[in-house]
């Protein structure tokens, strides 16, 4: 048979043959849990006397979501957290990328320093910040008192007004490096001849930034925004280590709520419904991301 196949056909068969094992593994470890979780979300699941009882209730769990005060709180927290984080991360990262792209910022040392927060394991990072923000021994309290900004030590993570913002600060600190590198790569792809042309055309530095740099970076910025939104929606580790959702549910994000409902309240079907809401949001963003990345590849000549 191989002798009758064209080269084109043989390549296609070989490709299928080579990816088949990977597809089987993906179906087993990704496809099965997704389907199972969706099924869970459509059932009322109860644990009683060590046995699981499932009863089909259709969209009942999702209807419950709409009326749930705590879920609404978590959704609003997540919305605030995601929007603020995306704006902060992208703006800060762009500024850092511009500095790193400047001749004085080129040395590799700066790039190594930049990557450190990103390279630290998420839970280790959260624990680190737990100590920095500690109400009794935290270095932040000590520093601010020494500088005269505060009179007495503050319980940063115990105050509803500040707790979510401190989570935000920690996550921004952790997220900036990757996005900065992403935008730096975008900056480096802007042909330097365009800056010369803009200079000859009489553009000031700011005008060159506005009319040459920014439009050339549109794709990279869009990718950064979408990726960062996905990551912000998925934050769990920080909440788990730093606040466990407190004080007074001020730091409950959707992902943490799904965890709490499922494993603390053992309301498995309802927890799965919350998880599926996050899944669908992330999936939509992922599709958007792939669309953003694809034309960039097509246009690359």
């Amino acid at each position, binding site marked *: 048979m191989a002798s009758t196949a064209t080269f084109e056909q043989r390549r296609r068969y070989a490709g299928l043959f080579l990816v088949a094992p990977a597809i089987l593994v993906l179906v087993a470890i990704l496809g099965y849990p997704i389907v199972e979780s969706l099924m869970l979300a459509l059932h009322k699941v109860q644990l009683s006397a060590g046995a699981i009882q499932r009863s089909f209730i259709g969209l009942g769990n999702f209807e419950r979501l709409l009326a749930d005060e705590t879920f609404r709180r978590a959704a609003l927290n997540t919305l605030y957290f995601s929007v603020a984080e995306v704006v902060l991360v992208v703006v800060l990262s762009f500024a850092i990328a511009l500095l790193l792209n400047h001749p004085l910022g080129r040395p590799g040392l700066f790039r190594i320093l930049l990557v450190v927060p990103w390279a630290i394991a998420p839970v280790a990072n959260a624990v680190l910040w737990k100590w920095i923000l500690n109400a009794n021994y935290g270095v932040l309290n000590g520093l601010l008192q020494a500088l005269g900004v505060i009179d007495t030590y503050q319980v940063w993570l115990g105050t509803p007004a500040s707790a979510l913002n401190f989570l935000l600060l920690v996550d921004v600190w952790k997220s900036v490096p990757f996005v900065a590198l992403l935008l730096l790569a975008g900056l480096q792809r802007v042909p330097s001849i365009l800056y010369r042309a803009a200079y*000859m055309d*009489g553009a000031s530095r700011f005008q060159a930034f506005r009319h040459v740099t920014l*439009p050339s970076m549109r794709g990279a910025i869009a990718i950064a925004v979408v990726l960062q939104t996905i990551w912000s929606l998925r934050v769990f580790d920080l909440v788990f280590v730093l606040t466990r959702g407190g004080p007074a549910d001020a730091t409950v994000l959707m992902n943490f709520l799904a965890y709490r409902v499922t494993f603390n309240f053992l309301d498995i079907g309802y927890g799965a419904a919350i998880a599926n809401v996050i899944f669908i949001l992330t999936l939509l963003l992922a599709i958007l991301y792939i669309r953003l990345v694809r034309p960039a590849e097509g246009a690359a000549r």
Partner: protein
Amino acid sequence: MTSVPHRAEPNRSVPAIELRRVAKSFGTVQVCRDVDLAIRQGEFVTLLGPSGCGKTTTLNMVAGLEDCTDGDILLAGRRVNELSPVERDVAMVFQNYALYPHMTVAENIGFTLRMRRVPRAEIEARVAAIAASLELSHVLGRLPAQLSGGQQQRVAIGRALVREPRIFLFDEPFSNLDAALRVKMRAEVKQLHQRLGVTSLFVTHDQEEAMSISDRIAVMNRGRVEQFGTPEEIYARPATRYVASFIGSPQIELMSGVVEVRDGRPTVPLGSARLTLPEEAGVRPGQRVEVGVRPEHVRLGGESLSATVRLVQPVGPATHVVLDWDGGSLTTTLPGFSRLRPGETVTAGIDPRDVLVFDQETGLRL
């Protein structure tokens, strides 16, 4: 009538561009040294040389894109070393066009006016006029990526034209075009210059391009200007061996020998042949020289030497024939298609007045 009016130049005796002992180094590498040039108002001058000879660096220094390490640059008599391109009133056409990829043709051409806060209506009118003169009116709304190479080239020229600058600078503008288009654009630029009369400085490594487009050519070599003259001067009376071999296709044939006087005339023996040198060449017997003969000056049927045909290369309007004899080899250019065959024996003659003589050591023409 044209969109870019002629400028009333105040004083035509002051050079439009003058370089005085201009030098440029990057660290320890000296790219240009002692570059002296005086370019007249309205002149079209080409900097010609191989890559790395410092021609683009010289252009960038005139543009204001690079600082000179030493020396002065004067535009219309005014020292401009520290001025920006806009203050110098110069516009540049870049090698790879350097069009802004996210802007339409109209936005690309109008960008420099926008940067100067020219009113929108005036920008539109000037862009439309430039586009009409460059046959770009129908593509004003397109992006550069949607244009052909020749159209992109014209947009780049339009972007320079729209400013109505005092000086045009061209950095190898045609190097990305195919051969046919290059010849066409060359003619367009020359006509544009004849129409507008704006002083232009053009950089290329293509000697034919330089010859066909320029009023005068500055041949550069290793950061210096070897010769500055009209195409005819450069071709017929090259100042150095380097200039002689850089200009002309096929290349000039250079042969070294020692001067002997025969019958009261200076000659150079080359194998069994003997080449008579021009009377005016100031040579003395025993001097080591290199003689250069251009292909079109080798006439078949003369009695200077007898040789064997090695190679026959027809190119259409002419045929290049390579001849071998015991003193070396020569190329001759014959009109039309030649019937010569490899291996044939022919005789060739060279008029002493067409022989170029260079000092073996200094490379200067004698």
